């Protein structure tokens, strides 16, 4: 029984970290309509930044600043934000699929930089030697995982409420206005370029926060953690959950990650030994089928966006009638 609880805590920690990342993407895509195809670059910047700033000295590459943990995590977020700012300045004039391709290229470049620049982050060997915070006080076992999960959950809840407030605010309306019709927003005296950049950087900082927590949880990050698969996974979570809805984003993260791990578990548990060798391939087919089915029959996601009419007094019917 304790084993099941221990695993569930572990699972929920990973899922919550991914949910934070999905929330970050939701701000960019769901609310602002920015097609970020390079999710993993900002996630990775957060992870690498946190581990390099907070880790112990390692021979052969940058790092070992041994900052206290909150500062290291903040550093990772700042790094992700700074990268997003530069990338955003260069690419946000692009629209839709062009932006997707440009950001995807940034992510691939990021992975290759990390893989090849050994002096920077250890190359393919990755960054290790990170002491998880409070490890001395809590040990390494179940208690630690439980406390860490509680911490991650708090962060997830904070990010959720922050984003709920943000999208309900006038700024949130502005984001949706730009998403729906940029020229109309411009005609009202708004500056779409600046707002898009703000949303892109904010979303990327949240992605960086998720990356920092991810690196902390594993006390390790390598170029294998920043492959395009992760971008795909996070997008799948948002699409299934419902773009534009923060609750949907969180639900999507738990569902997709749950399906991803549960299908692997079920196949290894119930399939005969000979078939077990093919579980990996079967799993890809199953997950792919879920996403295709979702797009075919419920493209708005499980929790569709709730559009709110913020001006009370004039009902939609009246508007139509006029």
């Amino acid at each position: 029984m304790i084993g099941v609880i221990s695993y569930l805590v572990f699972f929920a920690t990973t899922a919550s970290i991914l949910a934070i990342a999905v929330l970050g993407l939701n701000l960019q895509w769901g609310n602002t309509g920015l097609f970020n195809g390079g999710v993993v670059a900002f996630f990775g910047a957060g992870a690498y930044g946190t581990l390099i700033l907070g880790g112990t000295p390692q021979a052969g590459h940058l790092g070992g600043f041994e900052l206290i943990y909150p500062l290291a995590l903040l550093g990772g977020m700042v790094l992700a934000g700074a990268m997003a700012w530069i990338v955003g300045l260069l690419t946000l004039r692009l629209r839709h699929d062009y932006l997707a391709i440009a950001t995807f290229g940034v992510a691939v470049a990021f992975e290759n930089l990390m893989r090849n620049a050994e002096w920077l982050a250890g190359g393919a060997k990755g960054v290790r030697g990170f002491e998880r915070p409070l490890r001395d006080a809590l040990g390494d076992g179940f208690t630690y995982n439980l406390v860490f999960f509680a911490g991650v959950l708090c962060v997830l809840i904070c990010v959720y409420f922050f984003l709920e407030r943000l999208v309900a605010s006038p700024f949130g309306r502005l984001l949706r206005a730009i998403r729906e019709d940029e020229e109309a927003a411009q005609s009202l005296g708004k500056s779409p370029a600046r707002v898009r950049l703000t949303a892109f950087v904010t979303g990327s900082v949240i992605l960086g926060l998720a990356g920092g927590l991810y690196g902390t949880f594993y006390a390790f990050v390598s170029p294998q953690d920043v492959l395009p698969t992760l971008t795909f996974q996070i997008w799948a979570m948002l699409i299934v959950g419902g773009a534009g809805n923060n609750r949907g984003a969180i639900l999507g993260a738990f569902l997709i990650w749950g399906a991803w791990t549960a299908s692997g578990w079920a196949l290894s548990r119930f399939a005969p030994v000979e078939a077990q060798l093919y579980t990996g391939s079967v799993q890809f087919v199953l997950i792919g089928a879920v996403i295709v089915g979702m797009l075919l029959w419920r493209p708005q996601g499980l929790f569709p966006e709730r559009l709110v009419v913020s001006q009370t007094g004039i009902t939609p019917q009246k508007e139509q009638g006029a």
Partner: protein
Amino acid sequence: MPNLKLMLAGLGTALVLSTLGSAAAAQDCTTKIGAVLPTSVDWGRPIAETAQFAVDQVNAAGGAAGCEIEMVLRDTQVDPKVGVDAAKALVDLEGVNVLLGAVSSGVSMPILTSVTVPGGVLQMSCCSSSTAFTGLAEEGKTEGLWFRTFATTGVQSAVGAKVAQDKGFGSVAILYKNDDWGQDMARLIAADFAAVGVDVTASVAINDAQPSYRAEVTEALSTQPEALYLALYPAEGTAAVREWISLGGTQNMILANSLKSDEFRDNVGMQYLGNALGTDTASPRSESADAFVAAYQERFDAEPNGPGLANSYDAAMIALLAMEAAGEGASGAGVAAAISRVTDPAGTPVSADTAGFEAAKEVLAGGGTVMYQGATGNVRFDANGDVSAPAVVWSFTDSGTEEVEYISLEDVDAFIASLN
């Protein structure tokens, strides 16, 4: 989504029911061990099959520590998140205290730091080669729970340099796989070449799955080396060597053990590989290695060629021997501590098959120690869980590979010492 899970559960139940009848219970109890391997990757599946093969042989000998062994296999998809989650599920839900895997260092490392060391579980990898593990072990952070049967990085680069020296090559260009293994390999071999006075003209990284390697190959070719060193996997190796030869590059090639594959030989063509010499850690001069090859051929109808197969077999076998030595109900740390009892150079030699496992059982029951003579040699771990091994120089033949030269463990150690 609930439908999917229901479907899976239903499918699973049906499968279980259909297999229950055929599973004959040799023992009253079953001990589970975990395996996290990249079964969804082409070269990963044979590694898992070979591990299962070792488990089957042990079960034929009546299991380990009084129980039948069941290997629960999970796919890593070469994704660290997925691998770590699978490992955690195996430890928490299946209750394993011995974990085989993973292959990629980038997956093995987070499993080690966040699952097996905190959980006190023995982790035995067939194939993770990163030097980062040695560093971690030296800092005492693996708590003696980490072992790997992949000896080849240091040994192989030294033997590669020896081949270049023996053949009298004055200059060599290096093409290496751009991952942790390839980068380590390129760095080590460059240093070893320099130590024996061979000039390294170029060292070029080869990224996976590119449509063409013309740029990389041209860069290496323009330095006009007398020979080419390849630390690549079969798919990229084939593509790079084809371009190399079609552009008129030398056929003097030195190959890392990862290219010891029929696929590579067939796709490049035997007529171009006459001057290619490979290096590998060697089988011991004993019957056990032959027994492994024979048993493997009988089971899979092919020679055990392919990256990591012999290493995977030894990883599973040593873990199971250690479980036997540690006895029933031993913890992960207990099994880890028992590994020295089954890889003792002064112990009774046992072969790598069912008969060998039976022999080992008797010796261990009498309180003795055994020396496991495995598919990769007389495996012996150092304090960091790393292995050294004898080496072999091989070349391709029409039906597989043949041995050109055998270099004993003493000679390997002496040669490595002479390089420093």
